[in-house]
């Protein structure tokens, strides 16, 4: 045998896991069949075993899907990523310990899982009808006959769960990519596809093609992240120079300060906020649509003969919507305040204000403007919209969308506020505390940082 054929290769096919699931399936359902036959039990008597298996085996298959990606993805392992950063790896080279993208050998896993799925389907014949909750499944059962339908469903479920685990894990690393935003907008459209199972593989392949380049780009970005010297933080530089006497960093690095870079950020943050807002509004609409039609039906049924009841029901539903919108706004405002104030130090932190008996620090308190807006927005929208005839579904979508857009994005963003707001930083001389109660004794250095260069 050629020695090069003995070269070790990445173990893509999880033989141990697949064998365990196969043997487990055979053992569990074999013993169930045996017990059922020996004790002459009905299906209902051993339903709990079926339900247990119905959850455990799919969970394992999903884990195999997650494992297929995460085992070989350096982004999931900070130490491996660090190792890769320091190694000679180049973006056009394969990853040293195996590919996270699917390769031909993965077909073995898929075929194996499909066979296990067929086995499940066959074993689940007693339980399949109980799980046929979707009209599409019921129709398929009717068309194929019990055994074939159960086997087909088992096979689809097995492969589908693997794909779900793998793609979900893959998409996780693309949390801020436009591709995931695209998926976020497209996701509600999966429901119509569910009625036609043949569409699911098409969906899976589309998602895979959409996400994969972004994940690889992120991996490249991460491995290149430390290749360039980080720009100096002006405040850190001043502090370090004062404490240790290190020469201040000068030269080309200083040209692109973090503060200068942050000036560009509000535009990006605004774009992100708009997308967040649109996504929230879209999902609100998708989720509330069935609920809304149900409420309308209920209202009409109640008020068919009694207009007073109709009016009362309408008011109740409106009040409920306003309450939900206000509660969501309050939560978002609190979340934003928490994010900003937890990251601020004395004297602008809440505790710092209490200690210094200075509750309002005008230049910094622009940070409260947006949370206030978020809180009052649902109420203002409600009041403005109601005379024109409020369509509740649209109102909730718009209200949530705007609240989320305000909460995550626009001015002042956290970074901008920290680095670029009109703040005066006081630095003590070495040996003095950063904050002293008696200002006249500290002879503190006032550093006004000019970020406009």
């Amino acid at each position: 045998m050629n020695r090069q054929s003995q070269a070790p290769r990445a173990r893509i096919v999880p033989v141990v896991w697949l064998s365990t699931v196969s043997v487990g399936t055979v053992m569990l359902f074999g013993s169930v069949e045996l017990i059922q036959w020996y004790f002459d039990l009905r299906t209902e008597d051993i339903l709990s075993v079926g339900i247990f298996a119905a959850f455990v085996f799919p969970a394992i298959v999903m884990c195999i899907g997650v494992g297929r990606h995460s085992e070989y993805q350096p982004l999931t392992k900070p130490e491996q990523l660090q190792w890769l950063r320091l190694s000679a790896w180049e973006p056009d080279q394969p990853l040293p310990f195996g590919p996270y993208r699917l390769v031909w050998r993965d077909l073995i896993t898929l075929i194996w899982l499909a066979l296990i799925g067929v086995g499940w389907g066959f074993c689940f014949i007693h339980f399949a009808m109980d799980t046929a909750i979707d009209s599409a499944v019921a129709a398929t059962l009717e068309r194929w006959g019990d055994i074939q339908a159960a086997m087909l469903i088992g096979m689809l479920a097995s492969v589908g769960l693997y794909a779900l685990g793998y793609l979900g894990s893959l998409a996780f690393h693309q949390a801020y990519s436009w591709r995931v935003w695209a998926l976020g907008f497209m996701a509600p459209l999966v429901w119509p596809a569910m009625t036609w199972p043949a569409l699911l593989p098409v969906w899976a392949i589309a998602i895979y093609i959409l996400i994969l380049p972004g994940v690889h780009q992120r991996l490249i970005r991460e491995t290149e992240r430390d290749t360039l010297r980080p720009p100096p933080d002006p405040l850190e530089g001043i502090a370090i120079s004062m404490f240790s006497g290190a020469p201040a960093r000068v030269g080309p690095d200083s040209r692109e300060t973090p503060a200068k870079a942050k000036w560009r950020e509000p535009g990006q943050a605004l774009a992100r906020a708009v997308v967040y807002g649109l996504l929230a509004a879209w999902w609100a609409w998708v989720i509330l649509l069935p609920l809304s039609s149900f409420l309308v039906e209920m209202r009409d049924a109640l008020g068919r003969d009694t207009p007073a009841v109709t009016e009362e029901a309408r008011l109740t539903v409106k009040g409920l919507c306003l309450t939900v919108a206000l509660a969501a706004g309050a939560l978002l405002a609190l979340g934003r305040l928490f994010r900003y104030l937890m990251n601020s130090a004395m004297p602008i932190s809440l505790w710092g204000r209490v200690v210094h008996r200075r509750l309002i620090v005008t230049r910094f308190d622009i940070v409260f403007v947006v949370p206030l807006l978020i809180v009052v927005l649902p109420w203002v929208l409600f009041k403005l919209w109601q005379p024109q005839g409020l369509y509740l579904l649209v109102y909730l979508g718009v209200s949530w969308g705007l609240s989320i857009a305000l909460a995550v994005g626009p001015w002042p963003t956290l970074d901008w506020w920290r680095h670029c707001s009109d703040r005066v930083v006081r630095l003590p001389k070495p040996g003095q505390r950063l904050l002293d109660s008696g200002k006249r004794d500290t002879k503190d250095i006032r550093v006004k940082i000019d970020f406009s260069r």
Partner: protein
Amino acid sequence: MDTHTTEPAVIRVDGVWHHYGVRPVLRGVDLAVLRGELLCVMGPNGSGKSTLLSIIGGLLPPFTGRVLIEGIARRSSVEAERAIRQRMAYLPAEAWLPLNETCRAYLFAIGRLYGIAEARLFEHVDRLLELFDLDRQAEQAMKTLSTGQQKKMALAGALVTEAELLVLDEPFSGGLDPPALHALQGLFERLAADRSVTLIVAVPVPELIEAIADRVALIKEGVVSHCGTVTELKQQAGLSPDASFATAADKLLGSDIDGKLERYFDASDPDGALR
């Protein structure tokens, strides 16, 4: 500068400062290492040895100053950094290992990454496994190995790259057995002498340094306090060439171990009752 010849340095460290928070760890370190030189870095715990090696190895950026590898400044551009990484292997004291991989697969993966031809790689992997007494564990997953064996695998991983520049943080620590220590000692000497590999190695054991080092850099409180050959350092310490390097290092670093020992025993047993 501490080079003895006019030959350009392969690795040059110019005025490197580094801080953890506002605490300075390195304070204006200058160092130059020539091709085929084996430089040992020694100093007390917390003196900045590992930080210096991390900066040379590319793990950390210096606060100020720069590191030049064969004339290319570290972190000057992505391309420059990639070129340096092709030539240098850096092994931290606690190296990451893919524990689910087998020993052979791990070494193969690294060899391929560094573009070593398959046939040559086969031979090299076999020789490395034999050198570290790991040939019987070659097909085992690395998680089944002992701590010392895992350390050997980490070292083998650095060596299989065939890099011209090796930066190794405490390669002799981590539970290596006496044959491995002996093998490593001979290996480093011959890599530097026969193959012109440049090595910077952090070693805490003066006896080992005396046996292998071309030059020694003593680091104290973030500064290279002394740098030279073992004989030169003994001279600087005012000792004869026959004296042990441990005594010289102790003296140059101002450790005063003998005095501390005396004080310890005097304080714990002032009446000499335990003697």
